[in-house]
């Protein structure tokens, strides 16, 4: 390598000049090159036909479903008679279940708003980008924070009688504790996989489980007057 003084490093914002990137290798060592070239195939037909087949399979499934099952259609809209129960479409039933416990401002505006905000900012937080195992560093401090947050959240849910959200929270927290107690060096299998999971994984999994449970309850376990029903008895 030639002497760095042979070059002049300049910061230039002249748009007419094409910028060049120059690597300065300062140590007297030979450069190590990571070979990053990958196998490539022609988009047509490889990618094209894979996508076409996938969509065709989906289309066949949907067509068969449409031939066998009719979409529901109830009676003409009658502003003077509210059916009981009046249920939202299935993807909103989780929200409707929450409305049972919290006022509309919270369950209808605040929580969905916070969820959307939280989703949007995920990639902008370094902790999500680095995605290292939650319990692999600062274990004691993180356990303390974890304990406080979980207890406060569970008390909050219990005070408002939101058992449907409390149970999944406890289950996910139990798995997090299991991961915390696992020694990354000696563990194997599922526990080893679990201990390497980052905070973003835990929060998202908690969200997924809550979504699933709340929607399932709203769909199957709620009857007239939003009362609790057992679907196998109804």
């Amino acid at each position, binding site marked *: 390598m030639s002497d760095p003084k042979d070059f002049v490093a300049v910061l230039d914002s002249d748009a007419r000049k094409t910028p060049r990137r120059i690597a300065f290798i300062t140590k007297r060592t030979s450069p190590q090159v990571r070979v990053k070239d990958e196998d490539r195939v022609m988009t047509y037909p490889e990618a094209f036909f894979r996508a076409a087949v996938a969509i065709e399979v989906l289309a066949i499934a949907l067509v068969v479903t449409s031939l066998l099952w009719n*979409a529901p259609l109830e009676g003409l809209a009658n502003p003077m008679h509210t059916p009981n129960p009046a249920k939202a479409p299935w993807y*909103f039933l989780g929200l409707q279940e929450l409305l049972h416990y919290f006022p509309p401002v919270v369950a209808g505006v605040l929580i969905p708003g916070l969820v959307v905000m939280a989703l949007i900012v995920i990639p902008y937080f370094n902790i999500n980008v680095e995605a290292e195992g939650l319990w692999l560093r600062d274990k004691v401090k993180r356990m303390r924070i974890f304990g406080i947050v979980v207890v406060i959240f569970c008390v909050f849910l219990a005070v408002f009688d939101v058992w449907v959200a409390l149970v999944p929270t406890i289950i996910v927290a139990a798995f997090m504790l299991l991961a915390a107690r696992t020694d990354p060096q000696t563990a194997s299998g599922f526990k080893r996989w679990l201990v390497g999971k980052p905070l973003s994984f835990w929060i998202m999994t908690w969200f997924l489980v809550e979504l699933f449970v709340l929607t399932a309850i709203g769909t199957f376990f709620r009857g007239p007057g939003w009362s609790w029903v057992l679907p196998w008895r109804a």
Partner: protein
Amino acid sequence: MASTLDQLLDQVRDNRVWRSIFRSGSGESNLRRALFVQQNVFLHLFSVKARKRTLEFSATWYLGALTFGTFLILVITGILLMLYYHPSVPQAYADMKDLQFVVSSGVFLRNLHRWSAHAMVFLVFAHMFKVFYRGAYRPPREFNWVIGVVLLLVTLLLSYTGYLLPWDQLAYWAVTVGSNIASAVPVMGSKIRFLMLGGTAVNANALLRFYVLHCVILPFAAVLFIAIHFWRIRKDGGIYAGEPATEVKSK
């Protein structure tokens, strides 16, 4: 017989008229395959070559493509259904009955539209979770993730506005509850509800607004953001396929 079919195809594709429209010509060469993608206004969003690892089923489960597939089914069935649907009260409900009992294949198209809508909502959530769990939101793909969240909201809104259109009990009360939730927004809530419904109650104005939202405004927004979403995939280096197995060479 096989060769005559090929000869026939070649004859169709080798003349002036065909080549003036489709410039990729005939034959089985890689050049033709490349041109097929690169010279096509819809397909040139793709790169001519794709990394093999991104095409594996285990990479993405093809969820993004499947979501787009349901969207296409919905657009086509939706446009066909529009031919028999009048967005007025109570004609809308009568049209639903018409579609079910009078129109040839009406019940099939309506069913297909409805089930594809449910499938699309499910697939868009599944796609979001899959992208998250494999870390495909990380830089440089952060903004595409945000576009994805926007598309999730557009999908939910499309489903919600479409829900009102049959004007049955299910539709009417679902929208009543939904608009009352909207009015729970502090400060602006009642104004939002008023604008959403085009009035104070769920009536003919609300139906028309939801119809225009469902058939014009939201599909337009969806196409726009889908285009940006696909463009960003290309610009961010293609579909994320995890870290490649690297070979470290030193001199």
